């Protein structure tokens, strides 16, 4: 695949945590690509590095987290990009949806002010045009009484409405790439279903490329063509979602699939994951000189990390 068909191309990306006692890599050797107008799910449990990977791409890492390697957005290198250029991209061509609207949005500023912030920064629209655009955006994400909502504070809306507002904000400048970090985790299942459908619909209608970060394989199965599974800061498997769901190649992917109870399954006990993610801080030597194991292509476009004996035994 040539680079001009790629919205995002990540190569050997790492994120190193600097702390008073030393440093350790929280993400390392991460490779994946996201084709234009396609969807990729980045899946893993707490501490797997999925959010750090997304934050590194979005340039939102805290000061003690140092990214290295490469992440190209339509060919342009994002890692180490000058701040001014980054600001020009963020919010305009790269949109971000956070997990918790309550903490990501300002509690006191009216929604209209927050929703038009990107438009003020990145477009030359007049105040009236921005207001009109804001109403369109709210309609686009399925909200009604949009005039009222623009004057509301975030606390006056329900959880589902808040997440819709955040999605509206993320797509306000018609970005090419939308990064959504656990956008449905805080929602009830029925709302989750609506938000998943909304994201899928927007992705198709606007031709967005979507990078979805989640711990929920079910959500990935509903939303993403491709999936990359992260474990302990590395990708252990990636490929087409349907294929990986049917024939997981890595023990960890398999364990993740098996660990969730499902409706109608008759199991008395759930298999526990022997390979539960280590605290990277405690296993720094694990991440020492020997970099991550290579990924092997087990079938076309299906990559699985070489497994050491310990993992095979698990």
């Amino acid at each position: 695949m040539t680079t001009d068909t790629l919205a995002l191309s990540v190569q050997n990306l790492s994120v190193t945590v600097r702390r008073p006692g030393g440093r350790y890599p929280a993400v390392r050797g991460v490779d994946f690509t996201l084709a234009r107008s396609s969807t990729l799910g980045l899946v893993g449990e707490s501490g797997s590095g999925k959010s750090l990977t997304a934050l590194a791409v979005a340039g939102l890492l805290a000061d003690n987290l140092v990214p290295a390697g490469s992440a190209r957005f339509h060919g342009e290198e994002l890692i180490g990009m000058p701040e001014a250029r980054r600001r020009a991209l963020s919010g305009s061509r790269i949109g971000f949806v956070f997990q918790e609207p309550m903490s990501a949005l300002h509690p006191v500023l009216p929604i209209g002010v927050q929703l038009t912030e990107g438009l003020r920064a990145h477009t030359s629209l007049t105040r009236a045009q921005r207001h009109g655009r804001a109403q369109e955006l709210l309609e686009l994400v399925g909200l009604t009484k949009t005039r009222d909502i623009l004057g509301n504070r975030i606390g006056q809306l329900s959880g589902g409405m808040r997440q819709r507002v955040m999605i509206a904000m993320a797509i306000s400048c018609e970005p090419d790439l939308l990064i959504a970090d656990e956008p449905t985790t805080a929602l009830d299942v029925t709302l989750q279903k609506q938000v998943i459908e909304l994201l899928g619909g927007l992705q198709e209608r606007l031709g967005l490329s979507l990078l979805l970060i989640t711990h929920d394989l079910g959500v990935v199965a509903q939303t993403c063509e491709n999936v990359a599974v992260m474990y302990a800061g590395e990708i252990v498997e990636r490929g087409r979602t349907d294929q990986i769901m049917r024939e997981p190649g890595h023990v960890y992917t398999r364990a993740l699939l098996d660990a969730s109870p499902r409706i109608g399954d008759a199991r008395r006990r759930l298999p526990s994951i022997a390979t539960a993610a280590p605290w990277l801080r405690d296993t720094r030597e694990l991440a020492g000189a020997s970099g991550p194991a290579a990924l092997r292509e087990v079938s076309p476009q299906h990559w699985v990390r070489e497994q050491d004996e310990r993992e095979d035994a698990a």
Partner: protein
Amino acid sequence: MSALLEIDDVVKHFRIGPPLRKKTFPAVKGVSLRIEAGTSYGLVGESGSGKTTVARMVAHLTTPTSGRIRFDGRDVTGLRGRRLREFRQSVQMVFQDPYGALNPRMTVLELISEPWEIHGLHSRADRRRRATTLLDQVGLAASALERKPVEFSGGQRQRIMIARALALEPRLIVADEPVSALDVSVQAQVLNLMKDLQDELGLSYLFISHDLSVVEFVCDRIGVMLLGELVEEGAREELYRSPRTQYTRTLLDAIPSLPTATLAGNETGAE
């Protein structure tokens, strides 16, 4: 079989709005259910359906506006003083957020011993021994005793919370979303633990969850709440196989499903 817990038409109204203006919100509008000894009852519903309020009334953390709650055949609705303290020994609660529910300044020994202190049970030396046994039951080493919650992962903290809930040897555990803050692998371990403890100790659970697949795994009987009312109730197999209400069907349909692959554990777990 006589019921361990019987809730009869409980109603809870919360005062809302500015003080003195008597505006109320009906969070629970007349719920009745019963839990047999040694069984698990799952209460599912979305945010705001009133399931947590029901749980809190059962644990006597809030008082019903009207209705009756009977525990082991005795009316416990208006209990106060010594009687209430006695009742509290039989019903313990496990909360959703193990980060928020454990005092960060207390050691695990202090956390587990606190219920004994409140109820004036056991000597100092005895407490340490008993706490060690409890930790063992929930799969933690005795070395945890002197450590503080910050040193543990989410799953370990939930184990500590369960050990603390078991300290008074309760007969009913009210668990309010006990696994929803946990990763699936850790969730699996905590769910297995809760089932094991039930088999070992003959516990009953009132298990509150928004997750129908988790509830199916743990519970014998399930009630579905919507806007303060119990809209459907039934035995596990019956409710999942043939839901009677549209709302239950909607909830079941909303679960993002995984393509069916063969599940590990099916072969070993079916015995």
